[in-house]
């Protein structure tokens, strides 16, 4: 009950934020933090709830960004067929939807591979996958413009009562768009984990042989988790493409995957609030540290921060606080449950 109240309060605060935070610069920061939080929520589904060590999540993010950008800009590319493949610019929401589908498709591929390739090997495969994507984006200039980036990506627009079709270009509008998508994704994941499906995923994470002995189909659920996770990350990427409106191969950088992993793990993997908390901390911390230390030092602090959290708060911040709350308030003493 308290958690629910806290959540609604947080939501109310977040929804009204651009009204009382006047500086568009900060709103923009929160928007990009929000995009990262969505990506972290998707990674948490795979890493936190299903226990798969996926370290290539930037790949799905980037695929979503590029797919949406390319579909909305239109492209023509020569792939050795008699005439080049020409795709006309599509309506932006179609492009967005396409991005989600294409990312989900790649998620399906990785999911299929995940069963054959376990544990530490899977880590390496996912990292390699993201790197290969980055190199393709960098070198297939015909399609992606390489390092020159895809520019002038059209913004998303919505039918707003009284205003007709509005393009979402101001910082506040983009903030609300990201917030809306974020809330939807949060609840999608929440519904997933609080169900028979969620129990199956957690069972695979906690004790795979036991899960299999009671009939949980490993491959099927790994694929479901990866597809949904990739699709949501693709949505985050598409949001990025239509808010920032420039996409270059750097979206595939390992450092972005690492950022998402840090957010999930420090926030609390396997909890719903974890990626949000971790996302806020690591999305806003660079801003707080800006000017006081050069970027390298910030990253050194992050690196040491991860190590410290792993040593002292191994389950992450949210579970640690939940434990603390339970200790202080015996009335709340309901033991840790599958999903916080």
């Amino acid at each position, binding site marked *: 009950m308290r958690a629910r109240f806290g959540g609604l309060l947080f939501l109310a605060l977040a929804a009204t934020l651009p009204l009382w935070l006047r500086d568009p610069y900060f709103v923009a920061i929160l928007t990009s933090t929000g995009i990262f939080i969505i990506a972290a929520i998707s990674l948490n589904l795979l890493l936190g709830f299903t226990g798969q060590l996926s370290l290539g999540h930037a790949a799905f993010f980037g695929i979503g960004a590029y797919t949406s950008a390319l579909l909305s800009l239109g492209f023509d590319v020569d792939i050795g067929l008699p005439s080049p493949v020409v795709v006309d610019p599509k309506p932006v929401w179609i492009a967005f939807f396409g991005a989600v589908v294409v990312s989900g498709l790649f998620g399906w591929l990785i999911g299929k591979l995940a069963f054959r390739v376990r544990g530490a090997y899977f880590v390496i495969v996912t990292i390699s996958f993201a790197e290969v994507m980055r190199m393709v984006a960098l070198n297939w200039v015909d399609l992606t413009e390489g390092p020159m980036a895809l520019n002038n990506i059209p913004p998303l627009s919505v039918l707003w009562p009284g205003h007709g079709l509005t393009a979402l270009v101001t910082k506040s509008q983009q903030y609300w768009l990201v917030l809306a998508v974020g809330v939807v994704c949060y609840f*999608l994941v929440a*519904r*997933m984990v*609080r*169900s*028979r*499906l*969620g*129990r*199956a995923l*957690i*069972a695979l994470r*906690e*004790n795979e*042989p*036991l*899960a*299999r*002995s*009671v*009939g*949980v*189909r*490993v491959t099927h659920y790994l694929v*479901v988790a990866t597809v*949904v996770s990739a699709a949501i990350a693709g949505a985050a990427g598409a949001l990025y493409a239509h808010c920032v409106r420039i996409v270059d191969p750097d979206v595939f950088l390992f450092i972005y995957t690492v950022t998402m992993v840090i957010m999930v793990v420090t926030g609390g993997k396997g909890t719903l609030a974890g990626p949000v908390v971790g996302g806020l901390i690591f999305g806003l911390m660079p801003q707080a540290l800006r000017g006081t230390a050069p970027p390298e030092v910030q990253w050194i602090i992050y690196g040491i921060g991860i190590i410290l959290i792993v040593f002292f708060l191994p389950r992450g911040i949210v579970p640690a606080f939940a434990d603390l709350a339970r200790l202080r308030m015996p009335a709340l003493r*309901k*033991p*840790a*449950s*599958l999903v916080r």
Partner: protein
Amino acid sequence: MTEVGENGAARNVALDVRDLAVHIGGLVALGGISFQVPFGAIVSLIGPNGAGKTTAFNVITGFMKATDGQVFFRGRDLARLSPERIAALGMVRTFQRTSLFTACTVFENVLTALHLRGRTGLLGALLRLPAMQREEAALHAEAREILDFVGLAGRADEIAGNLAYGEQRLLGLAIALAAKPTLLLLDEPAAGLNPSETESFKQLIRRVRERGATVLLVEHDMQMVMSISDQVLVLNQGRMIAAGSPAEVQRDPEVIRAYLGSGKRAAA
């Protein structure tokens, strides 16, 4: 009277194992064993340590691949089927070393194990259809019923990892029962239990059989084995050396030799 189906499997028995062999890196873990478990029977698999009992379990339930031989469950060939598929067909096993979802509560453990009793998938979860909600309620009720059956109802909200050893073994049984087995394979269910706990477990196994399941168990506790089994199978060094009623097996000189060793060479 064994009926034989088209695939050569015996049809009126729950489990039909033929010439099952497992070679691991040159070592013969199982050297071609054959046996049958009739419906509704309680059959025990015994033998000294290293005889191949758990290997047999692993192979029969699909966790390990056999080098040779066949396993038929209710007349159906289990070759190349995954453990989860075999569980869905109705054969469920427990594990020798207690295997639980340790971070979850007792109730959640059983609820999770009721996986095969539900059908809601991704779409149902996302849309929260009334059918899903009804199913959840039914699963919750079933979980409570199973916990009542094994006697853990009072511990439903406790984290599984915090349970006493005996309670954890009971939970392991509850998890297996949740999967609604036709054939239940128990791997050393009484290991580490004190006499009164062992006696309770015995009663539970009998009640499981009364409810219609067939039971195959691996055990070291001879008192338990002899008192509840309809049939006893004895393995030694990967081979079946005796099969029969408890009384027959107890008198078998091969069995005695296997357990006590001949003269100075006692079983390890």
